[in-house]
């Protein structure tokens, strides 16, 4: 019978069928971080359980550690150090490989797991972090869980999982010049809604997907959780194989050949059935910017912010009203009417080398500098990204333009380490969530691609006009 990519991945990991919908799935890799992983490890130790296969479990410091140069265990968050110290001690006690603060490979979990070859096509991978779906961009079966489930996976190498339904999102047309995977995903969330992927594993397909670089695919799948999807997936192709080759934890020799042969089979069969299918035309897609407090509230960057009176029902109308008040925006105005206080390039969505390169190219091409009064930050996703960027001189491009150049971590995506842009700051941000208060008390986050963020930082207001 014809199968989808998801069906194949599910079947390969099925240890037992527990009921009509629930299966016991084998978990190939577990990644933890100091925020939620520390709780899982502590709980495991308290109950006297061991990590069943510690060589398959990893941990990094990204969520609480601060990103100031010369950093140590202390953070602006008063109890931040407790998490860092507890994580270090629990990983030592359980024998889990930790990418500690001074480790050259430390970084954001979803940036370092593909970089190190810990995430690979065809592997199942869980992390107590909702953006674990990022790794679906490689063709891994990866999803976010809570601390209790992470503990379960550590103790048993498995999870009891309700099988999601399958959805295919097919993009028609190719991405216009200057429009990125981030814009593509913001547009997808805008079309499907923040609840639109609920209960589904979503496979993304179409020529635009095939044309994306591996890093861009990671950006796209990263935000599958903003659709409330179980995960996002892209079938691995030769680009992915080339990307994985030679990575530290990737197989080598004959095992590499076996892996490559196996990965060939990881694609949806032509007659396979999806429970739901959506097609989105993207040939004329424009850069997207969010205006509300859920990622689904995006518009073409130069469109008018919707009028509350145009909402289709009373519930939407009330929600739009509340969001526009919170965001300090008026329906009918343009986002370019609003000046920004800050610009942020970073996070598991957009902190890879190609993201930094895109933003730096804009600075090099235009010679623009960050506008007065705008606090601008560039936070590489990992030690490796930072080194490679510095080898190419990108740090100087950013610093000369007025950006701060930081150490790797989640940083101001959610004021990790207790740092924020200030109360009610309006921020152009390459992150994934514009929730109320996400980046600080009363923060007003506008989600966008690295190109739009750097253009806005230099303009001093929200814009995706890169022609200047």
């Amino acid at each position, binding site marked *: 019978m014809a199968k989808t990519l998801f069906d194949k991945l599910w079947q390969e990991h099925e240890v037992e069928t527990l009921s009509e919908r629930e299966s016991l799935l084998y978990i190939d890799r577990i990644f933890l971080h100091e925020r939620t992983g520390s709780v899982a490890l502590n709980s495991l130790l308290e109950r006297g359980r061991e990590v069943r296969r510690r060589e398959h479990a990893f941990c990094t410091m990204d969520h609480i550690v601060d990103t100031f140069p010369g950093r140590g265990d202390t953070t602006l968050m008063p109890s931040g150090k407790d998490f860092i110290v507890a994580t270090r001690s629990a990983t030592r006690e359980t024998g889990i490989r930790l990418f500690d603060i001074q480790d050259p490979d430390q970084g954001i979990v979803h940036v370092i797991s593909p970089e190190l070859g810990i995430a*690979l096509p065809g592997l199942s991978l869980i992390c107590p972090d909702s953006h674990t779906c990022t790794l679906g961009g490689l063709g891994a079966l990866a999803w976010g869980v809570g601390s209790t489930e992470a503990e379960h996976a550590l103790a048993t190498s498995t999870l009891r999982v309700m099988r999601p339904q399958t959805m295919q999102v097919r993009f028609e047309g190719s991405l216009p010049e200057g429009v990125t995977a981030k814009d593509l995903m913001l547009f997808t969330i805008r079309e499907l809604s923040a609840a639109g992927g*609920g209960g589904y594993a979503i496979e993304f397909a179409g020529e635009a997907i095939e044309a994306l670089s591996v890093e861009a695919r990671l950006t796209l799948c990263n935000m599958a959780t903003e659709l409330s999807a179980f995960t996002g997936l892209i079938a691995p192709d030769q680009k992915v194989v080339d990307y994985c080759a030679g990575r530290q934890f990737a197989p080598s020799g004959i095992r590499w050949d076996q892996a490559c042969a196996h990965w060939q089979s990881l694609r949806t069969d032509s007659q396979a059935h999806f429970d739901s299918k959506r097609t989105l035309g993207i040939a004329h897609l424009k850069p997207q910017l969010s205006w509300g407090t859920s990622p689904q509230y995006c518009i073409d960057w130069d469109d008018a912010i919707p009028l509350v009176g145009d909402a289709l029902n009373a519930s939407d109308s009330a929600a739009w009203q509340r969001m526009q008040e919170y965001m300090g925006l008026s329906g009918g105005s343009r986002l370019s009417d609003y000046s920004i206080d800050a610009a942020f390039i970073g996070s598991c969505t957009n902190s890879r080398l190609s993201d930094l390169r895109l933003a730096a190219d804009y600075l090099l091409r235009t010679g623009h500098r960050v506008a007065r009064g705008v606090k601008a930050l560039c936070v590489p996703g990992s030690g490796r990204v930072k080194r490679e960027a510095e080898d190419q001189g990108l740090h100087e491009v950013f610093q000369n333009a007025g950006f701060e150049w930081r150490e790797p971590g989640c940083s101001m995506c959610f004021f990790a380490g207790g740092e924020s842009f200030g109360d009610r700051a309006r921020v152009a941000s390459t992150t994934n969530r514009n*929730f109320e208060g996400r980046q600080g008390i009363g923060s007003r986050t506008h989600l966008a691609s690295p190109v739009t963020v750097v253009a806005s930082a230099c303009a001093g207001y929200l814009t995706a006009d890169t022609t200047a």
Partner: protein
Amino acid sequence: MMPFSQHLGVAAPLLRDNIDTDTIIPSREMRTVSRTGLAAGLFAPWRYTDAEARTPNSTFVLNSADYDGASILLAGQNFGCGSSREHAVWALIESGFRVVIAPSFATIFKNNALRNGLLTVELDRSGILEILNWVEADPQRHRVEVDLEQCALRHDVALGPTSFVVNPDSRKMLLQGLDEIGLTEQSLDSIAAFESNDRKRRSWAHLRGD
């Protein structure tokens, strides 16, 4: 895990859609490496006008005497979206909540709730409004009864009970308060057998231990 069979309590409305876990418990309110000490941070951005000083926001529904002691939350669709933080569930439980009723839930939140004995009931918006309509007349006396044995919500007698659907596996887990890890440990033999086959089939997927 705390079992769940029946619960009678005050129901409070928070009918916004897409209430995310950053709002349920902000990152800055998760101060210790444990599952406790979270109640004061529940809905901090909405509950306080100044979260640091803990100045209550008198217009927030859970600060109203009408909903004092609320243990059932009526919410909008996609409740618990965003971050996977289980702290959102722990904070709700520590604050006395046993049930959340919403048109839909984010998957990770729902899984976390199930593993901590917090019942999530999916009910369409009109069903929720019907309950709310009755509750609002006298929230402290018009208590809602949630019966997981019968999969029924009892509220306005005139309307009769509202039935709801729960996945049978989840229902069993909640009714019996099962420890999932303990349950899976009964399958350790089949896990080992799977692994031994898998090492032949996908040798590349297995890293060497030391």
